Structure formats: structure tokens, C-alpha cells
């Protein structure tokens, strides 16, 4: 990392900014090939379900498409979440934003964050941003959310007493047991993991890392979860969106 930054400094004689590296590059050639081919990428099962859910009105309510039109209108949206909801000022991630529309605009019950319908809608909205750089707002209410997320990222937790940064910054590229430690970016979610045999949210991935260091995971709707998600999105700023990513 430091060598790369130094090189950038020498080459451009401008401010040294380490380029984030997607976990795609640590996933191995077979997994990359799976992600690259939409017909082989299992995440597209959820994308297709999400596109169907987009069209389907809830009982007595309007379909997503009824207000938003074609889902292609969602291009760029996933790349700038978490973001503050303009109406309330409250920071939300994409799942939280979808549930706001469920509650406010569809008078329908909220979807479970890890449920199949939420993952499907998030995957279908996410794929519209594929290739666009991840770029979240850093002003307003997001500033303190991101700052708290960074502080958490650097806090040692759990019986193993390790921080996210100790693995994902200092030791990215090295091996933890049989797994290559990626930089830990957020740009490919919801993501199909071969280990899970299903698609999962960024929150699920973060919980897995917390459980790995034998820490008590944060609840799905805990503010800490959103804070970590926001910091991950910021430290990966500029990475092309890969939803639905595939990882080992």
C-alpha cells in the first residue's frame, strides 16, 4: 500500500491517493469469470426476481414501477447510498430507503432486511449502477455518520481483540487461514457468496467478520451498522459498482 502511494507520488507529483482495490481481484479467476458472465452469475436469479417485484403492486398499493417507471431510472442510485433521506434528514442505506418507500409510498409492511424480496429489489436496483463509481455524499448528516464508522473500523473488538482495519488495511492481500484478506469494500452488494450458497447483504458480511473475531454482532438496524456501511462506501470511493458481485 505504502509503496503504491509512494509510486503514485513519484509519477504524478500530486497528492498521493492510494487506489482502492476491489475484492474482485482477490476472488480468484474462476470466481471472477462467474461474476463476469451474467448467465453464470447466480446473483442474477435475484436480479430477475427483483425486476418482477418492481412491477408487482402490493395489495391496495402502487407498484414501485407505478411511481418510478422503468427500473432503468434507478441508474446511479445504489452508487450513492448510504445517504440522508431528504424528507427526514435521517441517513439510510439502500435497504432502508426501499423500506421508506414501502411504508410511506406503498402503505405496505417493511421488508425483512435479509429477506429474499429485499435482497432481490436491492440487487435489481444495484445492477442498474454497475460500472458507475461508488460515490456517497459526505456533507450534512452523513459527515458524522462516516466519522463514527471510521472510528468503529479502527476499534479492536471481540475476544480476538482485532479491528477491521488491522485486517483490511494493514494486511489486505495476505492470508487469514485459507482466505485472502480483501480490502473489504462495499461495492458489490448484495453479493453472491459461494460459502453462503446464496446472495447476502453487506450487513450480513460485516456480521460474519464480527463473529469471526468473536464479537457480538450489531443488530441489523443498529446505527453502528449504517455507520460502518457508510465508512466502507467512502473508503471505496471511485470503485466501480459490481452488484451482484460473486465472492468465494
Amino acid at each position, binding site marked *: 500500500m505504502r509503496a503504491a502511494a509512494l509510486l503514485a507520488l513519484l509519477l504524478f507529483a500530486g497528492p498521493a491517493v492510494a487506489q482502492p482495490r476491489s475484492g474482485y481481484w482477490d476472488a480468484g479467476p474462476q470466481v471472477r469469470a462467474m461474476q463476469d458472465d451474467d448467465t453464470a452469475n447466480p446473483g442474477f436469479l435475484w436480479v430477475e426476481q427483483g425486476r418482477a417485484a418492481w412491477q408487482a403492486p402490493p395489495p391496495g398499493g402502487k407498484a414501485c414501477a407505478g411511481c418510478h417507471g422503468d427500473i432503468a431510472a434507478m441508474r446511479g442510485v445504489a452508487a450513492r447510498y448510504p445517504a440522508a433521506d431528504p424528507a427526514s434528514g435521517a441517513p439510510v442505506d439502500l435497504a432502508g430507503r426501499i423500506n421508506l418507500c414501502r411504508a410511506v409510498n406503498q402503505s405496505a409492511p417493511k421488508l425483512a432486511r435479509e429477506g429474499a424480496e429485499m435482497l432481490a429489489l436491492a440487487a435489481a436496483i444495484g445492477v442498474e449502477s454497475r460500472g458507475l463509481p461508488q460515490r456517497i455524499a459526505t456533507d450534512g448528516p452523513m459527515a458524522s455518520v462516516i466519522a463514527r464508522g471510521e472510528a468503529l473500523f479502527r*476499534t*479492536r*473488538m*471481540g*475476544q*480476538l*481483540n*482485532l479491528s477491521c482495519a*488491522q485486517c483490511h488495511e494493514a*494486511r489486505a492481500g*495476505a*492470508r*487469514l*487461514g*485459507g482466505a485472502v*484478506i480483501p480490502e473489504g469494500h462495499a461495492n458489490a452488494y448484495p453479493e453472491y457468496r459461494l460459502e453462503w450458497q446464496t446472495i447476502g447483504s453487506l450487513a450480513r458480511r460485516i456480521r460474519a467478520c*464480527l*463473529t469471526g473475531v*468473536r*464479537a*457480538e*454482532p450489531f443488530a441489523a438496524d443498529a446505527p453502528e451498522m449504517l455507520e460502518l456501511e457508510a465508512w466502507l462506501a467512502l473508503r471505496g470511493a471511485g470503485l466501480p459498482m459490481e452488484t451482484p458481485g460473486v465472492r468465494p
Partner: protein
Amino acid sequence: MLALALSSAAAAQTMDVPLTAVPGEPVRGRAIVTTRPLGLCLLCHAGPFPDRHLHGSIAPDLAGVGARLTPGEIRMRLVDPAASNPESIMPSYRRAAGALRPGRAFQGKPILSDQAIEDVVAFLATLKEE
């Protein structure tokens, strides 16, 4: 340079009195070190054990550690890794409290019992070959 500085600091750190009256049992120690969910060692370390492709690469290879360190130094590494390196990522295997947000199943518990730590020390002391 760094490795040199670390190992000379380490040499000053030793805990020569065993934690238990019953001497460590190397065969049990080997099982702890090589069974990932028990010892966790091979998440970070590599060593002279099967399945090297599943060993970690973020800590020194344990091969020859019994020649490099005395049993007292090895014990100290397990009990208080921060004594030789305050920035160490190796957890204390004996500390039972003090971690933030320990998982429910682990609250108030050390990673290994004193007897298990003695077993691991006894086993690592047998790893003489680099």
C-alpha cells in the same frame, strides 16, 4: 531490521513459572494448535503441519519456534503478546475480560484454559527444526 528489533524485545519477555502444577502435554498441545476452532493459531500462522495452503500468512512460521524461544518466552507470547509488541494482533490467550463487545458465548472467558496454554507451550517447545 524490524524483525530484529522485535525478537530482541521478545527475548527480554519471559514467564518462566508454569501456569499450572500439571506439566503440559505436547500431544494435546498439537491438537489445539492444529485444530483451527480450538487454537485459531493457523488463521494467522503457518507451521510444519498438513494443509499448508490453509495456513495464514500474517504471523511468523511456527517451524523452529522451540529453538528460537525458550518455553518461558513462548508462554509469555501466549499470555501477553502485547508485552513484546504493543501493536501485536495476536490475542492474549489467557485474558478473560477487557475486550469490547465479546460475543455472548465468550463473555468472561479466556480463549484457552491455563492447562491448554501449558499443553501448547509444551508442544511448541518440541518444534526445533526450522
